[in-house]
């Protein structure tokens, strides 16, 4: 058992090293090339904010709408719920019937929360 895991770990390490270097080596090569051949020429005109050629005035920061936050929270809640449902689904057949009832209660609680949010109009995008 340990032998096969050690064998797998070896493979994984090698693959990890290859994957990381596959992404890092071209970046390193580009940096070396840039240092050797092309001099850096930064300027404020070059780094100006792109606005189709116009001069942009003011900050690009805006105030985010709260609907984004609400949607993200709802998604998170149901995502976590599905994570709980996955091991339940895997071990479903070995569990006593009471476990189904317990799971049903859990799902219904969250469903009631969804119904409440729906009725409150939270799901309408303003």
């Amino acid at each position: 058992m340990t032998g096969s895991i050690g064998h797998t770990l070896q493979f994984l390490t090698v693959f990890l090293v290859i994957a990381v270097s596959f992404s890092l080596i071209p970046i390193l090569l580009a940096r070396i090339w840039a240092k050797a051949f092309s001099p850096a020429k930064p300027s404020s005109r070059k780094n100006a904010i792109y606005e189709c050629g116009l001069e942009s005035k003011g900050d690009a920061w805006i105030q985010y709408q709260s609907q984004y936050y609400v949607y993200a929270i709802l998604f998170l809640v149901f995502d976590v719920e599905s994570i709980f449902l996955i091991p339940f689904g895997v071990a479903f057949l070995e569990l006593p019937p009471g476990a189904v009832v317990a799971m049903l209660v859990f799902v219904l609680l969250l469903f009631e929360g969804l119904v409440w949010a729906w009725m409150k109009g939270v799901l309408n995008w303003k």
Partner: protein
Amino acid sequence: MDERLRSELSRQGVVAIKLETLYNWGRKNSLWPLGFGLACCAIEMIAASMARFDLSRFGAEVFRPSPRQADLMIVAGTVTKKMAPQVVRLYNQMPEPKYVIAMGACAISGGPFKQGYNVLKGIDRYLPVDVHIPGCPPKPEAVIQGLMLLQDLIDGQKLTGPGRPRFLKKGEPSDFEVPIEGAHDLVPPYNAAVWRPCKITIDE
């Protein structure tokens, strides 16, 4: 490297190539244009990029909407004086190495509208232009020829030495002065570092 040695190696399956050639080959065959269609020449540029005359065979696959992702600016159409500062600003925002193609008579010198009050008499007054494609508008084949001319130009660019292009030399500028809209004309009317009126005599 000796030609015979090179062909001998290639027969064995080994390709020997200079770094400079490889660099230029990669760049010239993947010129992504910032299609700057301003007027009628834009239609011909679009036609050149579409099915019959396909520019993407030559590497100009996608016309980028953003200057940060483009390395070729095809100024197609009349540049008005109101638009000129924006053209120069967009050129400044492109990363090196960058090239400019002036397509059509209007971008080269003002074209048929040269006497217009709002017409910039050629975009080469403010930007260094690499290839001029004459025509009003130039046929898509002419656009392709201009692109191929630019590819030849890129092919001949050196990587080291005094003959190397502007973007590899440390002291050379990579962005140019943006003209300001003045009370009667653009200020300055042309960028003296980039363009001078030609000295000619007119014989009667």
